[in-house]
């Protein structure tokens, strides 16, 4: 088994954990399965005192996709409420768009090829 859909679930779990950690109170998730890829869209508010942590998100999610890391470590995503595995999420996705708006709102769109 390749666990492709389970990996998508874990990526979303990880991002939701992150949104909670930055004080998110209204989190929306939307997933689209296309013929060749999955598109994951997540939006959330955050508390302004966590602005630095939100800024770090961009650096971590824009990690280059690394399949050998994903194969070994993917089980760690979405499993911890004391820490986040955003570097690993970055390594499990092919590309991402992050939009941080001035009114303390984040929009994240991730693409993961099949």
């Amino acid at each position: 088994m390749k666990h492709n859909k389970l990996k998508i679930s874990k990526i979303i779990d990880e991002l939701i954990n992150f949104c909670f950690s930055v004080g998110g109170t209204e989190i929306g998730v939307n997933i689209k399965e296309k013929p060749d890829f999955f598109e994951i869209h997540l939006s959330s508010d955050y508390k302004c005192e966590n602005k630095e942590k939100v800024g770090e998100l961009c650096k971590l999610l824009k990690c280059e996709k690394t399949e050998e890391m994903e194969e070994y470590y993917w089980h760690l995503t979405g499993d911890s409420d004391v820490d986040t595995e955003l570097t690993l999420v970055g390594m499990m996705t092919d590309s991402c768009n992050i939009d941080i708006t001035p009114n303390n709102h984040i929009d994240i769109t991730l693409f993961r090829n099949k």
Partner: protein
Amino acid sequence: MITYIYIERRIIIDNVLANKKLFKADGTASENLKYLVFLIYGLILIIFGLIADSPNRIIYGLYKIIIEPDLLITDYIGVGGIGAAFVNSGLLTVISIFIMYHNKIRLTGATISAIWLISGFSLFGKNIFNVWFVIIGVLLHAKYQREPFAKYIYFAFLGTSLSPMVTQIMLGINLPRIISVPLGAAVGIFMGFILPPLASYLMRVHQGFNLYNTGFTAGIIGTVFVSLLRSYGVAIESRLIWTSGNNLVLGSFLIIMFLSMIMYGIRLDRNSISTWKNIFKYHGKLVTDFTILQGFPATLINMGINGLFATFYIILIGGDLNGPTIGGIFTIVGFGSFGKHLKNIIPILIGVFIGGMTKTWSLTNPSVQLAALFGTTLAPIAGEFGWKYGIIAGFLQSSVALYVGYLHGGLNLYNSGFAGGIVAAVIIPIVEAFRKDEF
């Protein structure tokens, strides 16, 4: 001789650095440069070995290393001499680097730690003969999954912790060679074949708080396998081949090596010392990749400082610098790119130290020296939950590591990873249950 080699190396490096492909457009180190740095350290291990002994003694020493069983604790310096041990380590390091490079693996912290694990354990358990069977097994798994080998490369290199199983069956049990040799090969290949799904799955047990996850997996596999062997009357007893008296020459070599890492990190980026301090804010839990988070220069500095600290720890407690302890030091160095820093390893060592003061064994007991060095697998516990829990983790780890080895018969080289997984599986749920803060 050492000065001549240093000058030669300096000239080579300066010429190579002139090639712009070693630096990206923004001036940061490229993948080629990072690979070159660690390739040079691998070559240095070989050169050190060639200096330490004559070629004839090295060749004979390598032969002895190959034919000797490799279960814990087998110091290759005691088996084949310093020269053969370091040439073995250097050869495996260089070969591993070439395989990683050929498979276009990014030189992240995970890659660096895997390479240094190979370097370190090639001084006491992995050799140029016994590692290939597990690697072939992983390759076959990749073929079965119709995936490139590159995707499973970490399993392949880290899984060589089970290499002693191969030689133990080939050479250490009472069967005719015509049966035991192919049987050992088959067992090694089988271990490699089943390793990837197991290692990936068992990560959940400790949630990444045990850095040597493959050690935990190998301990589980080893326990099952050795239990089977014992059920058929095969006796597997641990052993101790341990050298001492080489602290001056080995200590000098290590200190120069680690100082060079620090100096080169500063040379790559003059601000890397202040960047290095940022590393302390990370807990160290898997996956904490310092090359991504703080950059390669700061990571090199962290590796060098970790190495110096671990070396001085052994020297100051009156321990021995030899194959196994240098293996432990190299592991701390390698994971200096992937989770470990002074702030999270010191509490673990304090815990082991307190154990040494109160338990029935002393700090200079060989197993305790290794328990201290390899016990830093639990550094993330100190990083995440604080130094008190780090001390508790170290205190428990030092006992568990001493006694779980019997389960796998010493055939899992990453014994501390096995012990660390057990300790983490016990400590983490308890600490989290009583912890009030969450998101």
